[in-house]
């Protein structure tokens, strides 16, 4: 899962990014509205955390522009502006959730997780697919009564697979959603991680479509 964090306060965005990376997300940071809008339109983000008080272009304007162009990426507004009329305005502009600063970190991450699950029509609580259940707190997967520990990259890949069951996912597409801009991307490394995942959860769940990519799920 790749998240765009649009926040101009560097000390805050560093911390949020650190936390999110720790929770298995790939995170890019934009510190102004113009960059944020441009990045958000790349179509590679699974969610956006958007500050309203961005320099150059306000967060609200960025959000309106995205929605005007049909960009439906889930957006969580993270702002110091917590008056009710601002919340109403934020949701009217197309936000999916609203968290006021200062916030409890756990609440923010729970809401980001819920936002992404909801975007993939997942029930509240945990990501569940094909007999597997993700334990996001421990970055592990539960299969039946067995808890399987995952490496950071395996967790990222599996979460993405489980949220997109039955879809053909190319290596470069997967790389786009598990690495941030700062990482060295090598789609061959994806192959290595996928084969590790197959060893842990069973080869049948991740099929290879030659020349196209991978498909997750028993039906795929």
């Amino acid at each position, binding site marked *: 899962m790749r998240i765009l964090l649009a926040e101009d*306060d560097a*000390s*805050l965005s560093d*911390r949020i990014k650190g*936390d999110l990376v720790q929770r298995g997300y790939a995170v890019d940071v934009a510190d102004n509205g113009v960059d944020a809008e441009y990045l958000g339109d790349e179509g590679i983000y699974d969610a956006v955390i958007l500050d309203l*008080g961005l320099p150059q272009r306000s967060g609200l304007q960025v959000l309106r522009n995205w929605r005007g162009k049909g960009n439906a990426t889930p957006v969580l507004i993270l*702002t*110091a*502006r*917590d*008056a*009710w*009329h601002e*919340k*109403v305005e934020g*949701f*009217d502009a197309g*936000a*999916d*959730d*609203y968290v006021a*600063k*200062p*916030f*409890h*970190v756990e609440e923010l991450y729970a809401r980001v997780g*819920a936002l992404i699950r*909801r975007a993939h029509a997942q029930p*509240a609580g945990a990501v569940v697919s094909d007999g597997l259940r993700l334990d996001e707190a421990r970055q592990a997967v539960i299969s039946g009564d067995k808890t399987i520990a995952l490496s950071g990259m395996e967790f990222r890949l599996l979460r993405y697979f489980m949220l997109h069951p039955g879809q053909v996912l190319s290596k470069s597409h997967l790389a786009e959603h598990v690495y941030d801009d700062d990482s060295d991307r090598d789609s061959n490394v994806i192959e290595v991680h996928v084969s590790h995942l197959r060893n842990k959860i069973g080869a049948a769940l991740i099929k290879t479509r030659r020349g196209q990519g991978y498909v997750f799920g028993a039906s795929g």
Partner: protein
Amino acid sequence: MRSLLAPLTIGLVLSLVVVFGVQWSMVRVAIDSTMQNYIAAGLAQDADELFSALSIQPGGQASLALSHFDPPFVAPSSGQYYQILLDNEVALRSPSLVYGSLPLSPASPGQRRVESVVGPEGQALLLSASGYASDGHAITIGVAVDLNPLRTQVAVLLARYTQVSLVMFALLVVLQIGIVRLALLPLRRVKADLGRLERGEVAQLGEAVPAEVLPLVREVNRLLPLLARRLQRSRESLGNLAHALKAPLTVLKHIANDEHLRQHPTLGTQLNEQVEILRARIESELRRARVAGMRAPGAALDLQAEIESLIATLRKLYRDRNLDIACRIDAALRFHGDREDLLELCGNLLDNACKWARSRVLVTARDEKGLLVTIGDDGPGCSPEGLEQIARRGVRLDEATEGHGLGLAIAAAIASSYGGEIRYGRSPELGGFEVTVSFPAA
């Protein structure tokens, strides 16, 4: 407050009284003197006629050789008399005098006098005394007439004149008051405009007013956007302040939960506590400062639409709880005031209700001698002792913290800034907590 209508009306009525009074007395004097002059002229002519008919015998006997006497001179006490003095002695008297006489003093020849005298029977007479000379005798002829019958006629005439004058006076007063009211009509229009402005039906006062009032209207129109801009600016700077303060607070909060601090749990707890105190303080001060209250010229807000937009927001914020948030508001209801205040007031109350509700929240509003908004839930509600305590002490803003009545305190502060009040109780329909906000009638 001083009315413009009263002094104008009083002034006009008083000046009309003076004008009519002066005119009335002038007319009265004019009629009186004209009548006297006319009568005096007649009397002088009578005297001349008498003189021409007068003959004096060598023995000093005077006699009148008149072919025809005016009958009134003959009829006793007719009110028309003559008396002739010959060398200061009464020589002849009209038969109408019977035994009486006129208080006639001699007049030198050529002299003619008019005076008011009392007649033999006590009547008020107008006496004309004319002096003549004939054959070395000094002759004075006095002719008098009773004024009473004429005075009666003049009185009747004056009474009629007074009646007409009074009617004219009344008509003029009514007309003047009408003119004054008509002239002040634009002021009433301005007043009505001000009322509409207050209710938010218009944004500016109409400038189709008389030149005398226009500067005032223009000044008000100039001040209105100034006031709105000032509120806007102060809210903007509050927003910027919030932004500037809350980002570092968030970082601090984050640091307090940092892994490195886990080894010093008391340090982390203390840091958390202090940050929380700071946050609560900033929150309550900023939120209170944002309230516009009745300072700002408000608009007439569609209450139903505004509440619905809030409910849509709350449904998204509490999406996971699947709350049934219902709204029963007449579409015609309007809230006269600032939109941000209304949303803040109802948003805080709705948020509180959503926090405590099991599954249902209900918003109603009606007009009952002022706007009445109730927000109830089906949560655990508040114990009677708790309600009593809130009712007695109110929710104090400085004591309230997030989740412990800050929302209620903000709502109460906003309501009171509009002269309204908040009551807490039990929802009769849902059984949980219910807040009732009542605004005074506009």
